[in-house]
C-alpha cells in the first residue's frame, strides 16, 4: 500500500505548521509579534510558495506574477461589494478568476521559454497594470483604488436581511477578521497552500515539472507533451497569487493597481531567490525575511542610529550614522538590492543552501570520517 506521506514529509509539514501557528509567540521578542505584520508574512508566504511552483519546480522565470496578485485583490473586493462581506466566497471567486486569467496568459506565454517567456509575462503584466490605471477604471477605480462603500448592493447579505452600520469590513461567518483572527485565517491558508505544494512536489506531476526544468527537450523527445504540465503549473501558481491577493483584500479591503506593477513581480522573485529557489520552505522564509526587514529597517531613523552607535567616539559615530542611514529608512531597498546581488553571486541556492552548507560543515567536523551529507537537491 503506498504510504500517504513519507515520515520526513510529515515531520516537515508538522514542523512548518507549528512554526507558523506559534508565530505570535516566538516572533514577539523580535518586535514582529503583531497581527498586521504577521498577516503580511502569511500572505506573501503564500505568494512565494505559489511562485516557486512555477519558477522553482518548472524553471520558468515569470516577471508578471503581480498581475495575478492584483486580479485576486480586485476579484475579492468585487465579491465584497456585489455578493457578501463573507470572506469565503471572496476567496473562491478570487482564486477562480485569477486561475482563468492565468490560463489565458499562460496559454500564450508558454509558447516560448527562457528569456522570451520572462518578457512575455512582463509585457502582459504591464498591459494589465496600464489598463487598470486607464481604460478599466470602471472596474478598478483607477488611482484611487477599489474600496468598499456603504451603498454597495451586496446581494447575498441583503437577501438574508443583514444590514450594516458604519464602515463595512469583511468577516467570516459573522466573525470579525481583524487582529489575530485575521492572522489565523491567513495562516490556515498558508499551511494549506504549503501542504498542497508539498504534495505537488512529491507527486508524479511534480516529477514531471522537475523534468521540464532540467531538460525540456529530452522530455519532448521521449514523447511527452510538456505544454499541459507547464500550463498547469502556471495556472496553479497564478491561483496561489490570486489567493494571496484576495487575502490582502480581506485584511485590508482596498485594491490598487500599483500592486500589479512589475516591480511587485520583481519582489516575489527576490523573495524566492533569497530564501532558496526550488525548496519548499525557502520561498516562505525569503518572504518572511524581506517583509520583516522591510518593516524593521524602514522604521529606523537617524536618532535610533545615533543611539545605536553612541558607544563609539563622537566623530566615528557621526560618520557611521551617516553611512548606515543610507541603508535604512527609505533606503532599505538598497540593502535589499545588495543582499540580493550577493546571494545571486555567492549563494545561488539562497538561504536554504547556506543552511545546508553550514549543516554539512558541522556534520563533517562532528564525525570525521563519516561520509558527507547527501545532497538533497541535484546540482543544476
Amino acid at each position: 500500500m503506498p504510504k500517504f506521506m513519507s515520515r520526513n514529509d510529515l515531520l516537515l509539514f508538522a514542523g512548518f505548521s507549528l512554526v507558523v501557528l506559534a508565530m505570535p509567540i516566538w516572533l514577539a521578542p523580535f518586535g514582529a509579534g503583531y497581527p498586521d505584520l504577521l498577516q503580511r508574512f502569511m500572505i506573501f508566504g503564500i505568494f512565494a510558495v505559489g511562485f516557486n511552483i512555477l519558477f522553482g519546480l518548472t524553471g520558468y522565470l515569470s516577471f508578471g506574477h503581480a498581475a495575478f496578485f492584483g486580479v485576486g485583490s480586485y476579484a475579492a473586493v468585487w465579491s465584497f461589494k456585489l455578493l457578501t462581506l463573507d470572506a469565503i466566497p471572496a476567496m473562491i471567486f478570487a482564486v477562480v478568476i485569477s486561475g482563468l486569467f492565468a490560463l489565458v496568459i499562460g496559454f500564450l506565454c508558454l509558447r516560448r521559454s527562457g528569456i522570451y517567456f520572462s518578457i512575455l509575462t512582463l509585457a502582459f503584466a504591464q498591459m494589465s497594470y496600464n489598463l487598470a490605471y486607464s481604460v478599466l477604471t470602471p472596474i478598478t477605480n483607477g488611482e484611487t483604488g477599489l474600496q468598499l462603500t456603504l451603498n454597495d448592493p451586496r446581494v447575498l447579505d441583503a437577501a438574508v436581511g443583514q444590514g450594516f452600520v458604519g464602515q463595512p469590513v469583511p468577516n467570516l461567518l459573522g466573525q470579525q477578521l481583524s487582529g489575530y483572527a485575521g492572522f489565523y485565517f491567513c495562516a490556515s491558508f498558508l499551511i494549506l497552500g504549503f501542504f498542497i505544494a508539498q504534495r505537488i512536489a512529491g507527486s508524479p506531476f511534480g516529477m514531471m515539472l522537475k523534468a521540464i526544468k532540467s531538460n525540456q527537450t529530452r522530455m519532448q523527445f521521449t514523447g511527452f507533451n510538456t505544454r499541459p504540465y507547464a500550463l498547469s503549473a502556471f495556472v496553479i501558481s497564478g491561483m496561489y497569487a490570486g489567493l494571496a491577493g484576495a487575502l490582502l483584500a480581506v485584511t485590508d479591503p482596498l485594491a490598487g493597481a500599483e500592486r500589479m506593477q512589475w516591480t511587485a513581480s520583481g519582489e516575489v522573485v527576490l523573495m524566492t531567490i533569497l530564501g532558496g529557489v526550488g525548496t519548499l520552505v525557502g520561498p516562505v522564509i525569503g518572504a518572511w525575511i524581506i517583509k520583516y526587514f522591510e518593516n524593521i529597517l524602514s522604521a529606523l531613523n537617524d536618532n535610533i542610529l545615533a543611539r545605536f552607535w553612541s558607544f563609539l567616539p563622537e566623530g566615528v559615530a557621526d560618520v557611521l550614522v551617516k553611512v548606515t542611514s543610507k541603508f535604512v529608512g527609505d533606503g532599505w531597498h538598497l540593502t535589499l538590492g545588495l543582499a540580493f546581488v550577493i546571494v545571486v553571486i555567492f549563494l545561488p541556492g539562497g538561504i536554504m543552501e547556506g543552511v545546508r552548507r553550514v549543516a554539512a560543515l558541522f556534520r563533517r567536523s562532528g564525525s570525521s570520517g563519516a561520509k558527507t551529507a547527501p545532497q538533497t537537491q541535484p546540482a543544476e
Partner: protein
Amino acid sequence: MFEVIFLQFLNGLDKGAAYALIALGLTLVFGTLGVVNFAHGALFMLGAFCAVTVRMFLTMETVTVDPEKLSPWGSPLEIREPLVQAWFGDFGAVLVNYSVPLSIIITIPIMLVVGIALERGIIKHFYKRSHAEQILVTFGLAIVAQEVIKSVYGPNPIPQPMPTDLRGAADIGAFLGMQANIITYPIWRLVYFVFAAVVIGGVFAFLQFTTFGMVVRAGMADRETVGLLGINIDRRFTIMFGLAAVVAGMAGVMYTPLLPPNYHLGMDFLVLSFVVVVVGGMGSLPGAVAAGFLLGILQSSASMNQVKAVFPGIDQIIIYLVAVIILLVRPRGLFGRRGVMEA
C-alpha cells in the same frame, strides 16, 4: 488629416530615438557577451544623472547675506553669485546654458569606466550561468544603482533646462513648403533625433569600417574560432560593453531636457527597451534600431484621438501588444537571424 499623422510621426521620432539607443546597447551586449543585461536601463539613468551632476557643479553659487537690504518678503537679502560666471564671465554663462550637451564630454569617460568595471567585476562571472541568473543579478544591480541615486539625489525628478537657443519650436511645415504654423516641432527633439542618428551611425561605422569592429563582428559570429586565431576576444568584448554603457549614458544625458530624470527612470525605460530588443530580434543591431523607431512612432500614433476613439486605451498597451504578437508569431523578431534565440 495628413498634418496630424505627420506630426505624430515626428513626435514618435524622439522617443523612438531613445528606445533605439538603449536597445542598440542592449543588443551589443547580448550579441557580444551573450548576457541579458537588466541593468542597462540603470546605465541610461546614470547618464542622465551625470548631466544633473555637471549642472549642479556649474551652477554652484556663493550666497552672501546682506543684512542692510531686505528682500520683498522681509528677510535679509541673499545675494547669489554663480561661481562659474564669476570666474569666466560671459563664457561661464555659455557653459551653464549649454550644460546638458557639454555633460556628454564628461559622461563618456565615466560611463566607459562604469561599464568596464561592471563587466570585469560582476558580469564576467555570469557567462556560464543561465539566462535566468543573468537576469537576476543584473536586476539586482539595477535596484542597487537606482537606490544609490535615490539616496544621493532624492526621490524627486530634477528638471534640466535646455540651452536657450534650442528652446522653442521649428516650423517644419513651412520648411517643407506647407502652410505655416501647422506642423511645428520642438527644436530640442530635432536635436535629439540628429544626435541619435549620429551615434547610431557612428556605432555602425565603427563596427563596419575599423579592424577592431571587424574582429568584434567576427567574434559575435563565432567566438571560439576568433579566439583560436590568437585574438584576445574577451578584452574586445569588455570594451564593447563599455561602449554600450557609453551609448546608454549619452542617450540619458540628452534626454534629460525632455523628461526630468528621477531614480526610477532606468526601470521605466528598461522594460520598454527590452520589448524593443525582442521585437527587433535578439542580437540584431539593425533590428534594434528599426524596432526602436517603429515602436516610438506606433506609440505616438496610438495616442491620437482618432485612434483612441476606436480602440480605447490602445495608447497604454500598444508596445506590449506588438511585442506579444511578434513573439508569438515570429519569435526571432523582425530582423533576427534564423536560429538565434528562437526557442
